[in-house]
């Protein structure tokens, strides 16, 4: 009896799954074309899955082991079941192998079941609560059905009743695991996820690489849409990426905007994109909604504008582009890319950048700085420092990229401290002076690709006139843009954040440093230095050199919480229940440190905006400058030479 039911169920479900898969692929192909290495990607996929994806999943050991057992067991069990039960190859060895695979899968499924008994808020419920039972049904049924094959039980054991129970179990199992995979059930993540890994839009991320710069928009081709209006304006592999989401909610747990009660939840956003690609509404979404936005009021389809149908604009503008979601995503989905793509449409086509956005963009166009300050005042902060200007010296070892912090009185203290350090180390450096412009970071993240490209082109032009070996900057945003985003426009530079550069100076013995005397210190990792560029160690190295033992926050390093200052978020200023910098200051307070070391003008401004009493905020450059010991030897020689000159003069 079973020898008829099992192959029928297996092949019928596989055929239906194949049909569903083709339908799903057709959905993705509604997107715009994208360049991918189709075959190479497929070949690289198993390694990407086993190494890169597992590396992210393994941050949670429980679920990593569970997933290895369940998924590994399932893949083996499915293949063997097709051979053994589908083609009726009743070989004892294969039978035992299938028993082992289903047993492994069953064990994993038990742990999935346990996780689902009292699931954390970040996990989606709904059909996902059914999944462990389906996994148990699949593995259990196939285990029992295989026992006779392995010769453990006699053929036809249990008679009709047993066959009926197993038939139902197998039907349930294959429906969830084969049909559900292609027809939009929870198991879709396996099918779409595998292809997403194969045809990822940032293949450089695999194998330990890093790809964080936003992709440029082709403004010269009038057929290219300016950003994403409708789901079909995404590239097809972006759509595929959305479909890969497993709704684990790790992004939600890390998102600063979600925690602050702003109307953004990265997981929901990705699910909304899935709704957009397949059509429907969000009433059946089984996770946390956007704070303050009830479910069931939004719907969409591939040909309908996303904003104010599927997603509200303030959801998109809540993002600080801190990349915590992307860093956490085990499926390596690119949330920030999608958000910026949609922002581009709002800014470039609709002119709908909220709050101060329009003013900041106008200022950037008219004055090359977001504050609208007179461009001639860019070097006022250094009026008494006698800085060398590139236009005069033409070449220098280091080009010091000042950034727009030049107009901000708080940041000027950091800049002056860093200049003091550079001078103490005897670094040959020069600035661009009035030829420097805003790097374009904030314009780009507000979606104004045109203004960004204009600024980038003019900066690259200015930089091309001079010779220098590297650029050093105190601003991680400029650092990121110069290092990772100018290359697409022909500007390739060696760029260092000032913390990295100071660490090099200290290693080279070029700084004579005393000890820090200002009490206990914690360090706040800027997103654009850490997650965007992987620099976690150099700032800590500098602090250690000052005799500081950093009191790490619970969320530090790659899990550092954003200060709320990135992505133009302070400009668009979407209201929430609390402010992101206040939450970060709470993290800082928990370390009981008296001072927080920062390395970013945005972080400085956001954290100093928290009401007192609170720990003091100092840039790493300021801490180093405070601990500098002016070299006594050199000071003497300068003084003595002066004295001689005085004697000659009557």
């Amino acid at each position: 009896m079973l020898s008829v039911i099992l192959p029928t169920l297996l092949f019928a479900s596989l055929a239906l799954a194949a049909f569903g898969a083709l339908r799903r692929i057709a959905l993705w192909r509604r997107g715009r074309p994208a360049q991918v290495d189709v075959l190479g990607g497929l070949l690289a996929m198993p390694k990407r899955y086993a190494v890169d994806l597992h590396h992210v999943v393994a941050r949670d050991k429980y679920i990593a082991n569970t997933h290895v057992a369940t998924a590994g067991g399932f893949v083996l069990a499915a293949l063997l079941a097709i051979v053994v039960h589908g083609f009726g190859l009743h070989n004892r060895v294969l039978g035992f192998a299938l028993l082992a695979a289903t047993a492994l899968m069953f064990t994993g499924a038990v742990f999935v079941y346990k996780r689902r008994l009292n699931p954390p808020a970040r996990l989606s419920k709904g059909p996902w609560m059914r999944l462990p039972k389906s996994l148990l049904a699949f593995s259990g049924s196939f285990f029992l059905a295989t026992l006779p094959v392995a010769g453990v039980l006699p053929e036809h054991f249990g008679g009709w009743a047993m066959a009926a129970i197993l038939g139902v179990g197998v039907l349930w199992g294959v429906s969830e695991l084969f049909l559900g995979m292609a027809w939009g059930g929870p198991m879709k993540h396996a099918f779409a996820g595998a292809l997403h890994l194969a045809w990822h839009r940032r293949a450089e991320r695999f194998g330990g690489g890093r790809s964080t710069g936003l992709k440029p928009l082709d403004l010269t081709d009038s057929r290219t849409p300016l950003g994403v209006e409708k789901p079909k304006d995404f590239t097809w592999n972006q759509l595929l990426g959305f479909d890969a989401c497993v709704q684990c909610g790790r992004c939600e747990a890390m998102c600063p905007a979600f925690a602050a009660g702003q109307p953004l939840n990265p997981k929901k956003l990705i699910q909304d994109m899935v709704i957009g690609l397949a059509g429907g509404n969000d009433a059946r979404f089984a996770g946390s909604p956007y704070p303050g936005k009830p479910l069931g009021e939004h719907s969409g389809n591939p040909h309908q504008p996303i904003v104010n149908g599927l997603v509200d604009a303030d959801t998109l503008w809540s993002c600080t582009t801190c990349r915590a979601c992307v860093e956490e995503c085990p499926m390596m989905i690119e949330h920030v890319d999608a958000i910026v793509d949609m922002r581009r449409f709002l800014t470039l086509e609709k002119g709908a950048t909220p709050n101060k956005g329009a003013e900041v963009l106008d200022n950037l166009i008219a004055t090359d700085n977001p504050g609208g300050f007179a461009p001639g005042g860019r070097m006022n902060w250094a009026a008494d420092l006698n800085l060398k200007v590139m236009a005069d010296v033409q070449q220098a070892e280091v080009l010091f990229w000042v950034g727009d912090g030049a107009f901000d009185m708080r940041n000027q203290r950091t800049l002056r401290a860093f200049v003091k350090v550079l001078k103490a180390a005897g670094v040959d450096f020069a600035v661009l002076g009035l030829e420097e412009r805003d790097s374009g970071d904030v314009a780009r993240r507000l979606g104004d690709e045109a203004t960004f490209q204009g600024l980038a082109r003019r900066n690259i032009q200015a930089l091309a006139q001079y010779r220098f070996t590297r650029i050093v900057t105190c601003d991680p945003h400029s650092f990121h843009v110069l290092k990772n985003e100018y290359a697409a426009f022909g500007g390739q530079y060696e760029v260092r954040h000032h913390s990295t550069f100071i660490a090099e100076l200290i290693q080279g013995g070029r700084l004579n440093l005393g000890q820090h005397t200002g009490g206990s210190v914690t360090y706040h990792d800027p997103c654009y230095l850490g997650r965007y560029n992987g620099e976690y160690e150099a700032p800590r190295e500098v602090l250690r050199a000052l005799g500081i033992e950093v009191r790490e926050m619970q969320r530090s390093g790659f899990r550092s919480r954003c200060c709320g200052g990135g992505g133009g978020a302070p400009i668009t200023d979407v209201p929430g229940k609390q402010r992101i910098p206040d939450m970060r200051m709470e993290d800082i307070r928990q370390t009981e440190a008296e001072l927080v070391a920062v390395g970013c003008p945005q972080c400085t401004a956001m954290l100093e905006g928290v009401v007192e009493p609170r720990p003091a905020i100092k840039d790493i450059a300021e801490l180093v400058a405070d601990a500098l010991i002016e070299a006594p030897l050199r000071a003497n020689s300068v003084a003595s030479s002066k004295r001689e000159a005085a004697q000659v003069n009557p």
Partner: protein
Amino acid sequence: MSVKIVSLVSVGAHPTSGRARRAEQDARAVELGLQLVGDNLQVLHAGKAEEPALRAYLGMGLARLHVLEQPAGSDALPALAEYLRDAAAQIVLAGTQAETGEGSGMLPFLLGEQLGWPVVVGLAAVESIDGGVAHVLQALPRGQRRRLKVRLPMLATVDNAAPTPRQSAYGPAQRGELQAHEVDIFDDPLLAESALQPAKPRPKRLKVIKAKSGADRMKAATAKASGGTGQVLKGVSAREGAQAVMKLLIEEGVIR
């Protein structure tokens, strides 16, 4: 509303960088026009058609911008007057003062004079238009509004009391059309003879705060200017009026 509205725009200059941009007040004139008649608004500029800063107006969602092609330094007045006379416009909106060129703020008045139209300064809102009469709100200092009934056609200038202009978006700015019209060219003798120089800010009378308490300061900041010792002269002869003015000028030290 199916009246024909024309907004006049000029090329502005950013106050700190001096870079060409859409003029702040002219953008408000466009915004007001767009709010009144949407896509039917006609926007007009007299000057060079290839000026990129004009695209910032197109970025507000205009399909085209009409340009009366003129070289720099020519007199915009005759060309505008002739065009508007033929255009059958009912309402012409303009900024109060240009940010570049002479920037005298005289253009709307001279234009009104040439066309024989009433001129409303400081237009804040148009409430209704029916039967060739417009009910409009005129902005007065300190947030006060005066309701006016004006027979169309009229010319109105807007200042900061008019609605804030919408953001200029790149896409529509690139797609919009700068439609050039050939017109007769008139030289501007004043601009040809005299040189432009940057204006110096006028000296301001020091404001002495006498208030002792917070309530007094609040009052001083919010109260209507009381005019102090001023007096309203009504129904007096020209001679009496002139004498009063003379007296004031001597008191203020303008005439010694």
